[in-house]
């Protein structure tokens, strides 16, 4: 599965290029609008082309991500996909209550996290050692909050609440509690 870091890198490059292009375009417009020129009436066709482009971008963005970001389909269809492992986690009084067994995952496994809250709205985020985020979801009291994730990269991962639940929520960090290990050579095809 494509790593979320790669998607974020792509977004960084794409959005930065867009920002620079728009700023340069606006600077050019600001200069030209103060100068006289022969073309004063913009043809209607230009306007309709812009409208068409906006519609195309607006519609295609979500189709493109549906086809290229793997966890999108995984998330929408999680009820019908069998998980290799399931971990149940409770949140209450600004603390995560983790499963008694160590959360060890073999790279390539699909893991279902089922998180419930006894009191407040919290968040459930899984982070890499460099503090970048692998994924997150909200944790609402009175509801089952579940997410299916396909782990690929071996390493230690930290859980922290990604939603504000009062100042006490700052302590909701469980460092290196998920370990993803390499697939054993025997298990390789």
């Amino acid at each position, binding site marked *: 599965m494509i790593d*979320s870091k790669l*998607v*974020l890198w792509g*977004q*960084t490059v794409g*959005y930065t290029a*867009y*920002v620079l292009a*728009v*700023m340069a375009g*606006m600077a050019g*417009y*600001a200069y030209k*609008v*103060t*100068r*006289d*020129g022969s073309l*004063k*009436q*913009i043809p209607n066709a230009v*306007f309709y082309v812009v*409208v068409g482009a*906006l519609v195309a971008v*607006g519609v295609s*963005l*979500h189709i493109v*991500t*549906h086809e*290229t*970001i793997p966890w*999108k389909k995984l*998330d*929408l269809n999680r009820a019908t996909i069998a998980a290799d492992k399931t971990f149940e986690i409770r949140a209450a009084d600004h603390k995560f209550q983790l499963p008694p067994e160590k959360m060890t995952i073999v790279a390539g496994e699909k893991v279902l996290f089922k998180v419930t809250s006894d*009191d*407040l*709205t919290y968040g459930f985020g899984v*982070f*890499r050692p*460099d*503090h*970048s*985020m*692998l994924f*997150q*979801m*909200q944790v*609402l*009291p*009175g*509801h089952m*909050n*579940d*997410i299916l994730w396909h782990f690929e990269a071996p390493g230690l991962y930290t859980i922290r609440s*990604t*939603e*504000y*639940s*009062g*100042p006490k929520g700052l302590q909701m960090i469980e460092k290196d509690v998920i370990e993803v290990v390499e697939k054993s050579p025997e298990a390789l095809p």
Partner: protein
Amino acid sequence: MTFLQTLIRGTKDLFKPDGLTPMQKMTLRFVVVGLLWYGIAVAEGMIMRLSLVKPLPPFPPGHYYAILTAHPLVGIFGSTYSVVFGAFLFLVPFLMKKPLWSLKAANWTCFFLAFGTFTFWAAGFISHYAPLYTLYWPLPADFTQFSVVGGTFFILGIALVMVGTVLFVINVFKTVTYTPAGFPPQPAGALLASALGLTGLKRVFSREKKDHLVSLPVAAIARGTVDTALNAGIILFTGVLILVYMVAELSGHSLKHSAVDALLYKNWFWWGLDLIADGLVLIYVAGAWYLMATLISGKKLFMENIARAALFVEMVVSWTVWSHHLMSDQAQPGILKILSGEMVTAFELITQGLAFTITLITLWSARPLKMTNPLKFLLGGLLGFALAVPAGIMQADLGLNRILHNTQWIVGPHVHVAVLVGLTMTLYSAVYYLFPLLTNGAELYSQKLANLHFWSHLLGGIGMGAFMGMAGLHGMLRRTMYFNGEFSGYMILAALSGSLLLLGFLAFFFNIVMSVGLRGVIGIFLPAKLNTKDLVPSA
């Protein structure tokens, strides 16, 4: 004139508060209140920016989160609502060519916005009531963390703001529809239908093409005001709900939190909040762009009928987009996430892109234009939304939201660039344009300070959003404090950009005070000496 004389009497002693009409005074009061609260919001923002570089001892987490809770509310209600309501209460009668329905109600609106904002701000400051603008149930009623008395005053302050808002809504629609004494009878129903877009909708299905009875800017104000009214209703209802829990707690009867479903509450509240963020802000801003473009260029708006239709679509879209805030809520139905969260939200790219294009083409038709303060700030505002709207569309995607939600990306390149660069620069454009009209020809103290204001604000706003966004893409969460310098590099750069915003505001504030003088500022709040319903003094 010496510096001291100018400080007291204003530039060239041109501003005479005694010569202001009651309408001018009312509008200027709103502007002064809005700017003062904006200054508080900027100061709060700087405290938070610095705290994210390194936690500051005077602002421990309890206090930090009280600031975080009050900050957007001060910015929206205390500052933006004040400036926008003041401007619209002047512009609607100006554009409709008739007096405001009630000057008294307008002045009460100003008072309720100022006093209500002070009440909730002070309640948060003193009691550290910090339930994140009451967003997530049952946090607002979590009295193990927050003071119930402080919370009661906080909610009371919000309610006062909403009362002022309701008065504004009534005043706008009554001004559009009523017949002033001495005027020929006006068709209230037809005026209302035109303002809301029903006439335009009818034209699509009818061969008979009736003229629009209200101008495009009035239509924009009216449609944005529908969202303002709906939002006030949601916030008032929510406030009452929270107050019920508070009153019960004070009387020794704790109510069960589970009586209110957290997901339902979240849907309800975000539906209401999006009437501001994705409703009235976008509609008012588009209307302001159209108005400013026609005023600056002196030309008819390009594709006016399409612009009208887009405003109507924007209003309907704003009622149906809220689910993009719940894409990380796994209990939220997937169909709502896709239809409301992804698809309908994408319409905002189209409607706002249309407004952007129409405004630029209208200005282009009048070139060469002089790069005046209103024009440069208008272009800044357009740029802000051109950057912020696509950032929002990206996070309103199920795939990207999974790795962006609640990071600094949301609040940086999207929220702060939209609000500070897009919205605020559009408002500054209107303020610079209206300044001579509202002050009967007072002169700006310094154009160099206006230029400093423009560049500091533009670069500060974009820079802050960019560095917050970069931190977000590297995993930095919003609404979180970091104690080990995890993201201090980005946060130092964001704080430096924030200080440019502060510099820009101080340059603007000083420039305005020196233009009208301290005597003038005080005079704005004294009763008007002219007894007239006219907007400006008759020659």
